[in-house]
């Protein structure tokens, strides 16, 4: 291999940088919007609903059609097939049909010769609405009995009876806000018509197969006529799992109707108004415990604002239930999950997928128990951890890989939790205006799609006669480093440098029927599928050598120095050349389906997860009690990624996930007005963390244990779990507020996000309690 230049500037594994890093920094990594635009390309914009819920009495689009540059204007009646861009329930319209159901809903579609012309024209539509009753808040939807699906119940034992007999009992509740994904690259798609009714779509999507199928149905064509391609996304975080379909379908509709390529690049403000976000939740609980803070019984009610369509809300709310135990044994427990339908944009997948909401609920309950018993919250956490003979989740899965106790113990020591806790108390005794707080919270996150059939993946590996390798799989690259991880897996199989492996765009015509790249599963599933494909080819090469050189196939070894058999050694490239001449197929698919998972949604029992990923974090914060301003001063993290496929990539996921979680719980506030209009639809009003919000002390360490399950390289998923480490920030803020009236044995009434306003209100509430 040394005789040929590498395909790309790769460095040695295992901590190889992101495969596109050298392109990112020079501006040459191509995103969907970066290709040259054909002269006849059309640009698109939606006319949007101004009302949360109304019948469309009349629609006058004459001014839109007459606007400069406009080539076509389409409404629902122009859609040849299904007017649907939903993932499962069939209830998301590409274009509103007779009725609008949220502000920002797409009502008509403008195609023009420039983006500017399309956007201007889209504002000229005149729609006469007959308003219908609109539900905006969780309270309004609950009062109206408006649900996406029936309320779900997960239970063990008799929570009511155990509550009645518990030595101590507390009720409480709080609200937590949603979150906008704020991927830096907005939603975008380009559809290019091909011959004979075919369609090619470039989309910034986590789920190419879903877009393929939806577009096919929308155009009333077979799926085989639609190809969806994505090389990379400029961030996604769940926001391009189902939400990309709207824009791709719009582009496909125009391309199909006009025969011209069509691009939909959504404006940021429109993107934030039109696309789904993390669910906001209302939590209410009734918890029974003893004087040591051990939870004996819990009745928990999780209510979420699902927005106006089903989207992925059932699975997201299921996951909130799955994580309402976090690391804790809940003997008698009842978790009730209300999925409320409101006339707001449909909430959707976002990193953690309901898990953060469920986990924040139980951590808040633990803090409440600690406050009421007067015990240190960490002691209460430890007292409630899963352990021997108390190791079964509320959904009846045994926790077989529980490392939370050891991780907490180690982090407590390395982060000097007890020493710093004492320092915080001393600081608070000295200071009137500023107060500090510290908290350690753990994470246990279940890995697998809880919809069991999604846990499958395919890959395609080509080895060329010169020994270079091309790989393709069903996973998409959104920045998380999936491509480089899979490339490393394949390179390892052949013992060749990763620089000889070319990673190609995800395409539905290479690997079909893929699942979304979601649920942190990308490397687990696609890495294993690619491993299978590569191993198939390696075995063929070994068999070929055995046949042609009279050795045993089992004696052929692929090493960094070449392929060894007996006392001979061939370069990998030479072997490939010989195998090709010997008429050996050097291409293979690979397939993987996660074993051993089963779940009965009727009873909410089973083994929905292949394994758990763990972590723990200590956060220390400071609050200005006069204004509610606050900062995260220090964070120490210990996180479990199994045997890491790529430690640098994993560390990046941990740090980035944490800061995103910190944003969710502190600065990022979504504000809807009473009419269901999102007021925080731009970065001017919606505030994700900046560089200075990163804690100055930010130490991350990886846990040094393998996955007990035979995953690829015994690694663990890392995309979502670290997000929830940021719950330690919220917990620390609660303790800080409590320090403003330290004699009160109560949990300050803090809602998330803990903006300065929310904190000032909680301080007043705590002092008045």
């Amino acid at each position: 291999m040394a005789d040929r230049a590498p395909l790309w500037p790769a460095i040695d594994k295992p901590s190889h940088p992101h495969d596109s890093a050298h392109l990112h920094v020079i501006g040459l990594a191509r995103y969907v919007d970066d290709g040259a635009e054909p002269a006849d390309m059309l640009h698109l914009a939606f006319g949007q609903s101004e009302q949360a819920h109304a019948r469309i009495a009349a629609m006058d689009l004459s001014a839109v059609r007459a606007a400069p540059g406009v080539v076509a204007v389409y409404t629902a009646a122009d859609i040849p097939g299904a007017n649907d861009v939903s993932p499962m329930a069939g209830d998301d319209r590409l274009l509103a049909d007779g009725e609008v159901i949220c502000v920002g809903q797409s009502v008509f579609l403008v195609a023009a010769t420039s983006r500017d012309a399309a956007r201007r024209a889209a504002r000229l539509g005149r729609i006469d609405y007959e308003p219908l009753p609109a539900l905006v808040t969780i309270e309004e939807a609950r009062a109206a009995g408006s649900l996406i699906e029936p309320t779900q119940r997960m239970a063990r034992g008799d929570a009511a009876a155990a509550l009645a007999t518990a030595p101590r009992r507390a009720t409480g509740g709080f609200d937590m806000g949603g979150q906008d994904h704020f991927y830096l690259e907005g939603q975008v798609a380009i559809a290019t018509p091909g011959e004979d009714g075919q369609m090619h779509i470039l989309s910034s999507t986590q789920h190419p197969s879903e877009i393929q199928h939806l577009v096919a149905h929308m155009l009333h064509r077979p799926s085989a006529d639609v190809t969806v391609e994505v090389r990379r996304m400029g961030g996604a975080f769940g926001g391009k799992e189902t939400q990309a379909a709207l824009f791709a379908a719009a582009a496909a509709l125009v391309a199909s109707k006009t025969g011209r390529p069509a691009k939909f690049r959504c404006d940021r403000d429109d993107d934030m108004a039109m696309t789904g976000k993390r669910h906001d939740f209302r939590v209410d609980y009734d918890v029974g415990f003893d004087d040591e803070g051990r939870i004996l019984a819990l009745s928990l009610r999780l209510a979420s604002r699902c927005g106006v369509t089903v989207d992925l809300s059932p699975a997201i709310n299921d996951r909130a239930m799955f994580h309402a135990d976090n690391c804790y044994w809940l003997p008698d427990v009842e978790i009730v999950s209300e999925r409320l339908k409101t006339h707001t944009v449909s909430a959707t997948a976002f990193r953690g997928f309901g898990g953060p909401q469920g986990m924040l609920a139980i951590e808040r309950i633990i803090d409440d128990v600690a406050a009421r018993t007067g015990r240190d919250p960490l002691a209460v956490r430890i007292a409630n951890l899963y352990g021997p003979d108390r190791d079964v989740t509320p959904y009846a899965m045994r926790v077989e890989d529980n490392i939370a106790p050891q991780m907490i113990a180690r982090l407590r020591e390395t982060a000097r939790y007890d020493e710093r806790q004492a320092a915080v108390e001393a600081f608070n005794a000295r200071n009137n205006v500023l107060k500090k707080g510290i908290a350690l919270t753990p994470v246990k996150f279940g890995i697998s799609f809880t919809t069991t059939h999604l846990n499958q993946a395919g890959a395609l590996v080509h080895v060329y006669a010169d020994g270079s390798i091309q790989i393709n799989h069903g996973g998409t690259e959104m920045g998380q480093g999936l491509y480089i991880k899979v490339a490393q897996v394949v390179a390892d199989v052949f013992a060749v440098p990763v620089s000889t492996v070319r990673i190609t765009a995800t395409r539905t015509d290479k690997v079909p029927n893929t699942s979304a790249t979601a649920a942190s599963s990308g490397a687990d599933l696609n890495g294993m599928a690619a491993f299978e494909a590569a191993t198939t080819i390696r075995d063929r090469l070994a068999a070929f050598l055995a046949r042609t050189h009279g050795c045993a196939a089992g004696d052929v070894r692929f090493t960094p120095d070449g392929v060894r058999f007996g006392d001979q050694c061939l370069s990998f490239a030479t072997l490939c050349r010989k195998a090709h001449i010997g008429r050996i197929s050097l291409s293979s698919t690979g397939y993987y389906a996660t074993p051993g998972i089963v779940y009965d949604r009727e009873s909410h029992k089973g083994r929905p997860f292949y394994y758990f990923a763990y972590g723990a974090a200590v956060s220390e914060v400071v609050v200005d009690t006069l204004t509610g301003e606050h900062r995260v001063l220090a964070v120490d993290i210990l996180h479990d990624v199994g045997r890491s496929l790529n430690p640098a990539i994993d560390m990046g996921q941990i740090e980035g996930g944490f800061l995103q979680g910190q944003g969710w719980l502190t600065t990022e506030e979504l504000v809807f007005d009473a009419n269901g209009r999102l007021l925080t639809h731009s970065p001017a009003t919606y505030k994700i963390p900046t560089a200075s919000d990163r804690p100055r002390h930010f130490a991350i360490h990886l846990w040094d244990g393998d996955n007990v399950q035979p995953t690829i390289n015994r690694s663990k998923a890392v995309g979502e779990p670290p997000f929830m480490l940021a719950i330690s920030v919220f917990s620390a803020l609660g303790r800080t507020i409590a320090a403003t009236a330290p004699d009160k044995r109560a949990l300050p009434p803090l809602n998330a996000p803990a903006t300065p306003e929310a904190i000032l209100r909680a301080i007043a509430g705590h002092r008045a309690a």
Partner: protein
Amino acid sequence: MSVRFILDGEIVDISDVDPTATLLDHLRYRMSRTGTKEGCAEGDCGACTVLVGELDADGTRVDWRAVNACILFLPMIHGKALLTVESLADGGALNPLQACMAANGSSQCGFCTPGFVMSLYGRAVGASGHDLPVEDVLAGNLCRCTGYGPILEAAATTGALTRDDAALAQQLRDLASGETVAGIYGDRRWFVPRTADALADLLAAHPDARMVAGATDVGLWVTKGLRVIDTLIFVGDIAELRTMAETDEGLTIGAGVRYAQAHAACARLHPDLGELVRRIGGLQVRNAATIGGNIANGSPIGDGPPALIALGATLTLRSHMGRRTMPLEDYFLDYGKQDRRSWEYVESVHIPRPAPDSIVHISKLSRRFDSDISAVCGAFRLDMADGVVTQARVAFGGMAATPRRAPLCEAALTGQPFTEETIAAAADALREDYAPLTDVRGTAAYRIDAAVGLLWRLWHGAQGEAVSVLEAQLG
């Protein structure tokens, strides 16, 4: 006339210029330079960061500043030099900053990365704001993936980089002209005057014209509001308006002085004023936005005016008929209504230097510390004699339709001993001074409580207590 600027040593000449076409769109869709990204099209995310260079006052050096290309109208770059991320590729080789960022995990999705590269490259070559802490340099660059750690590490480990701009400086000198540049685009017209007199004459002739300095506000009228502006006068290139004078009496800042340029002088006048200026937008915004523009547009949430009012600033307006000067607070008449005739422009603002024993306190409250608009911005100047408040100037933004003084609070302080009791009485009075609105940045109740909290912060701070979470240390 055409817009001409220098990119990678070549003169780019754009004729038939739509005066509100953005530099970003031109780069991406007319020049196929797609490394520069659009993240928000409103100057808040920094994915479109480019470096604009112009000759320094002596006409010898090239001064660089990072700006957001998404809200930079093409005429604003006339006569200047431009660097985009593509400019940094030296035959495809990465510079040390890029090499470090590529190796250390500074990019994940990579979409924001070119903007970070440009901000940090600017810092490395001594661009405007290069001496600020790196978090400040990056306050206008949002990354949603990395958590910023590797990026900050790359900045810390990459030292200064050198540029040889001698040839570029000569090109800029060749391109320079003292004449007003003007263009017509359909039935719209635009001007880039070079002198204060030329501006006055233009305004007299086109009283309906929209003046644009940094376009950090007007830019959004176009990219978000899709507004069509018939006549534009770009005032950013008038040297006379870009001067500052620092004397014992105070600081006079020309209306065309950008926030980044004024930062150090403001900090010398009072550290709180410097801190306030630091927190006005990201560096790209402060490298474009002007003090004059922030006053002239009369925003009720503009962060500069409350502080300037409390400090006793005066405003000078100029027109072809002469000048007039007024206390700054008198300029703000009502929501969106200022005491400026259509042919006048803001020439300068003068901030008197506070007496050494005056107590000055300025605070801005927002959800996020950097690059956010305040929910409440409060400023106090208490002149003292023998422990008694002889004069109190208290002004708030975000509490009324305009930046406005707090007369009841001032009265409760004036003539009173500086004691906890006086502050308590002033706090009660302050609650009566304003009837703020509830909006997306905060409720009325929070605004009142927080305003009172700022008065108490002044008190506790004056007692030597720790009152700033920004200064709080670990341990």
